[in-house]
């Protein structure tokens, strides 16, 4: 048995060794670069807090657009950016705060944005439409309802947090 074991020739041995060493060198070079490049995917970020947006008294049954500012940290660049929401009170008094970002390709929708579709949210980019609850209307481009902001009420003021996407209808 052991005599029949295939001998590794000198040439094969050197080939294997060189390939191995070369492989280690290539991996040693590439590993830091790849980790460097994919860092944004692996970073864990703390979720942003809540911002005061509007007095609850101002809300009606009709969606109104409210803007507020948040501090945004973009790597080495810190800035104030504007967020917007369409906010209204439902008949039962619960508050709906909808993100205006179209779930199709990210344009900005507006309430009654098209005279042909009263009482709907309308996206001018490809004619996407949503009901008052922000649910996408079948046979228009958006694949999912408008995102809903996390919300809390404190001393008559509405605070909004992150916009949470909703599952496709």
């Amino acid at each position, binding site marked *: 048995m052991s005599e029949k074991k295939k001998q590794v020739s000198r040439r094969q041995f050197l080939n294997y060794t060189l390939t191995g060493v070369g492989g280690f060198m290539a991996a040693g070079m590439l590993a830091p670069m790849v980790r460097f*490049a*994919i860092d*944004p*995917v692996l970073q864990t*970020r703390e979720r942003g807090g809540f911002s005061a947006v509007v007095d609850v008294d101002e809300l009606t049954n009709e969606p109104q657009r409210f803007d507020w500012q948040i501090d*945004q940290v*973009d*790597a*080495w*660049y810190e800035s104030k950016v504007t967020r917007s929401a369409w906010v209204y009170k439902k008949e039962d008094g619960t508050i709906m705060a909808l993100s205006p970002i179209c779930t199709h*390709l*990210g344009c900005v929708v507006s309430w009654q944005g098209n005279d042909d579709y009263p009482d709907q949210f309308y996206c001018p980019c490809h004619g996407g439409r949503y009901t008052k609850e922000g649910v996408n209307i079948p046979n228009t481009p958006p694949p999912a309802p408008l995102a809903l902001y996390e919300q809390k009420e404190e001393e008559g003021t509405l605070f909004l947090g992150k916009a949470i996407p909703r599952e496709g209808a």
Partner: protein
Amino acid sequence: MMQKIYDWIDERVDITPLWRDIADHEVPEHVNPAHHFSAFVYCFGGLTFFVTVIQILSGMFLTMYYVPDIENAWKSVYYLQTEVAHGQIVRGMHHWGASVVIVMLFLHTLRVFFQGAYKKPRELNWMVGVSIFFIMLALGLTGYLLPWDNKAYFATQVTLNIAGDLPYIGDFAKTLLAGDPEIVGAQTLTRFFAIHVFFLPAALFALMGAHFILIRKQGISGPL
């Protein structure tokens, strides 16, 4: 004088076979527009290469003024276009060339398709060509963000959302491209710049090299 220099080098290094191998070959009659005018359709590949050379040269010169920083990118483009001598021309070459190169590539592809030049044994070169087409589209998409104006910003938001729709790896691809899961900002611009100016041109050179080596090995396809 030039001849003397050439001979001096050739005597020592024997460079004649080198360039002969690359440049000295017959142009068959059926691809020569001087013989059959309709053979101009064979020019589109060369024209694509010509415009690509313009893109690479003008792009290299643009980087002398351009900075990939969200505070200054737009200002640097504005400056190079309005204040720098011939800036409008150099930027114009890069700006319009980006569209012309796609048109040429498309016409070249049409010629290859309708002449059936992609058939055996040239299937591999068709695949290389399709890869070049995707690299070109990616160059156009990444370059479009660099002026950092409103159009660039919103077009990129859409581009990133398309990347985000990829099955399974969508979120990963989007964050990898944008540098942040939500923000299109400082990191997006530096990434797009690096991809536009280093990564994609490197891939483009490799593929163009393969494309031309295959053409030399296999020759141009015969007349219809």
